[in-house]
């Protein structure tokens, strides 16, 4: 036995005799993970979270979360002698007087943007492929919670430096809190320790930003990964892949090397962005003062759609009996986001209710094979995109020489009209793709080769698909719509009433499909040949 084997064996023995881990580790190290590029999206989320923890810890070594007024003395000449909060002064100190401090601040901010973007794209993957279906509904809900927390965490993060832009964001958040019926102004006074801005909010959001929310997120991410581990990963359909198996590579060594390597790649790319691409140059904005503002104030992108909704809101307030209800803030700032996130969290159960399908699913859907779900996704994204566009209406107006009035009306109408249009178009595209798949399985692939037959007719040569490809295009399951008639055969009205009618409608819509080729079709086709 070599010396190295002796040390390894000794360590393993020490640990196993104290934890009994060998059996578990043996299973773990050979655990199988399916391979697909889209499965890396969730990895990007996790790795950027780790980068955020590392770079954030670095920043805490110098950041002073205090609103005590100080006079700036540091390397950034234009602000020398200016009165500002200790928080802003320390953020300037990190940017100009700590070696690598600006780099680390920029890495932290870029990692936050990547974290949110990767989370959104990962959720899109999960949604469009139906990976959220039973038994993974809980993990979907954890994901929605993480997305919500991520938005809040990011907002608090860029509010910490206490520059003019971040203070403006906090001011808007305060106005939303203040608009909450009955308790709004009380909540605001509790959160800010008195009148806005007060002298406490930086140290309070600091505690929430570096401890409370990251702690909750870490716990949720752990639970998320444990469930992925325990339930085994989903896989795309294809030859040899079934609901009963999982096909892929073992954790050791292939996945360890690939996933571990990928962490370094994500970190490297983030560091590159932090090095070359300036982000949030706080020294340009100056310290926060509620009587001042910069033109073109913009939140980070994941808040942009919310701001866009607020900007699109019609100016409606209700005054009666000595109270005020600000619909122009409540509806876009709290009610619509509340509805969106609730529907999102419950979507797996809504779909189960529509389809009546309560079975486990481990094979992913190709998005075209579930046209209704894909269309719902496209509809939701369209809504968010129009809102995001309106969030940048001032920049669009100045950069493209448009009138802000036009952009606002485009957005107001677009928010209502475009999502349904996106729904219909997406659904039609999916059904067309299904039709194309069916054609391909039955008649083969078009080769583009034209041949003239002896009697002068031109035909295009079709090449048969490989059995693997044909299987992929025809192996998906097509469920019939639920049989809830509006009245049964005896003319007795559906006992479930309106609810039953709605469910029957939705079920029919969600099961609208181009029927895939059956073995019967294939037999008939062959009969036609002979």
């Amino acid at each position, binding site marked *: 036995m070599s010396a190295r084997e002796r040390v390894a064996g000794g360590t393993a023995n020490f640990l196993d005799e104290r934890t009994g881990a060998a059996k578990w580790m043996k299973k773990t190290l050979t655990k199988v993970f399916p391979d697909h590029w889209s499965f890396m999206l969730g990895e990007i989320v996790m790795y950027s979270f780790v980068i955020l923890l590392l770079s954030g810890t670095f920043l805490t070594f110098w950041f002073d979360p205090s609103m005590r007024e100080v006079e700036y003395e540091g390397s950034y000449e234009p602000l020398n002698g200016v009165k500002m909060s200790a928080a802003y002064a320390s953020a300037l100190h990190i940017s100009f007087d700590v070696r690598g401090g600006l780099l680390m601040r920029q890495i932290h901010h870029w990692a936050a943007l990547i974290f949110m973007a990767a989370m959104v794209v990962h959720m899109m993957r999960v949604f469009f492929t139906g990976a959220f279906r039973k038994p993974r509904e809980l993990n979907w809900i954890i994901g929605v919670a993480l997305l919500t927390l991520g938005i809040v965490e990011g907002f608090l993060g860029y509010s910490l430096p206490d520059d003019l832009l971040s203070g403006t964001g906090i001011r808007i958040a305060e106005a939303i809190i203040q608009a909450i019926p009955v308790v709004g102004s009380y909540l605001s006074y*509790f959160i800010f320790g008195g009148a806005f801005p007060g002298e406490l909010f930086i140290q309070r959001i600091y505690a929430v930003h570096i401890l409370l929310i990251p702690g909750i997120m870490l716990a949720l991410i752990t639970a998320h990964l444990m469930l992925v581990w325990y339930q085994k990963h989903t896989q795309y359909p294809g*030859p*040899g892949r079934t609901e009963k198996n999982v096909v892929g590579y073992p954790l050791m060594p292939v996945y360890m090397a*690939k996933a571990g390597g990928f962490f*370094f790649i994500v970190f490297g790319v983030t560091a590159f962005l932090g090095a*070359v691409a300036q982000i949030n140059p706080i020294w340009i904005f100056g310290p926060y003062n509620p009587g001042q*503002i*910069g033109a073109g104030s913009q939140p980070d992108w994941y808040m942009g759609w919310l701001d866009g909704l607020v900007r699109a809101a019609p100016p409606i307030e209700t005054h009666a009996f000595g109270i005020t209800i600000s619909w122009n803030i409540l509806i876009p700032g709290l009610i619509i986001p509340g509805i969106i996130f609730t529907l999102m969290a419950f979507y797996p159960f809504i779909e189960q209710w529509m389809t009546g399908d309560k079975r486990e699913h481990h094979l992913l859907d190709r998005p075209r094979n579930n046209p209704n779900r894909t269309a719902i996704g496209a509809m939701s994204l369209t809504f968010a995109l129009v809102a995001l566009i309106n969030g940048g209406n001032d920049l669009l107006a100045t950069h493209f020489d448009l009138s802000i*009035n036009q952009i606002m009306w485009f957005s107001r109408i677009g928010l209502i009209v475009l999502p349904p249009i996106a729904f219909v178009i997406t659904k039609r595209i999916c059904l067309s793709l299904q039709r194309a798949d069916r054609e391909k399985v039955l008649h083969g692939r078009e080769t583009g080769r034209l041949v003239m037959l002896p009697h002068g007719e031109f035909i295009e040569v*079709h090449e048969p698909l490989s059995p693997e490809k044909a299987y992929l295009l025809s192996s998906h399951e097509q469920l019939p719509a639920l049989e809830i008639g509006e009245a049964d055969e005896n003319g007795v009205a559906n006992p479930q009433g309106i609810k039953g009618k709605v469910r029957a409608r939705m079920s029919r819509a969600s099961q609208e499909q181009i029927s895939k080729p059956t073995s019967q079709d294939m037999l008939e086709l062959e009969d036609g040949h002979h």
Partner: protein
Amino acid sequence: MSEMKNELEPLSDPGLPEHVHRKSDVDPLAAKKAERQVSILFLFSAIGTVLFIYSYIWIPREQLIFLPIFGTTNAHQLFLGLGLAMALFFIGMGAVHWAKTLMPDHEVVDIRKEQRSKDEDRAAFVATVKDGAAQAALGRRPLIKRTLGLALGLVGLSPILFLRDLGPLPGNDLNETNWKAGTRLVTDPGDRPIRPSDLEVGGVAQVQPEFPIGKVRHLDDIAQDSVLLIRIRPEEFNLDAERLSWTYEGIIAFSKICSHMGCAVALYEQTTKHLLCPCHQSTFDVTRAAKVIFGPSARPLPQLAITVDAEGYLVAKAPFNEAVGPSFWGRDS
């Protein structure tokens, strides 16, 4: 016509495709080459760290450098970052290349089992829970059940009570500013009282209420008191008699805190006499007492009545007659 093979059954699973060997699996030379490539990638990483160390120690912190597209930037931070990026990125590339070319690429099949426990396990679980509950005998001892409920309910109150000192109650705070009848308007910044002649037609000035000597102006004060003075030609006003009497020789004063969400309404367009809030583009018409003409704000900016005192300085005629800033539940107007 298509030439579909007879054997093809669209619904039968042809099974996993046959494994295709990579070049490096069968050709030792290719494997050697892959090994070299992986090592070179790791070497790049090492060079990146050397660049990082060099930049940390030897590039001066104030050194600027011009980068195409990105503009002038700090060379110290730039090369630190590039070194770090290189060091990390190439470790990752090396590891992935290693996994792809040299580690086994045989797909493995594992079997799934249903998440649901076996029926006997579920039954045993239910039995255990029932048995445990029976042993605790909570159902047979209602006194314990009720008092425990009371205790747990009450103990839940204490965390809420603990939070009471987070802040004072708003009281009438949101309805009040530091503007009183006779308060002088002073420049911000500068704290100098101003006369009407200091502001030319077309001019704008930000003012605060004058504070007695010794009183410090906090951000909370600025968040409520900030006022914008605008001077136009008096005949351009389109105001009722009362509002017109709140102006002085063409000078009109509005709260600078947006009536929508409290941003500073800072953009004044001289030609149209519009005030614009850069946060959500609420636009107010100065000539018509800051009537909202665009955007999400539902109320005009509050107008401050002004006049001049005996020494000819601008003063407030009266406090604001409504709350400034964003709306809140108890706002009564």
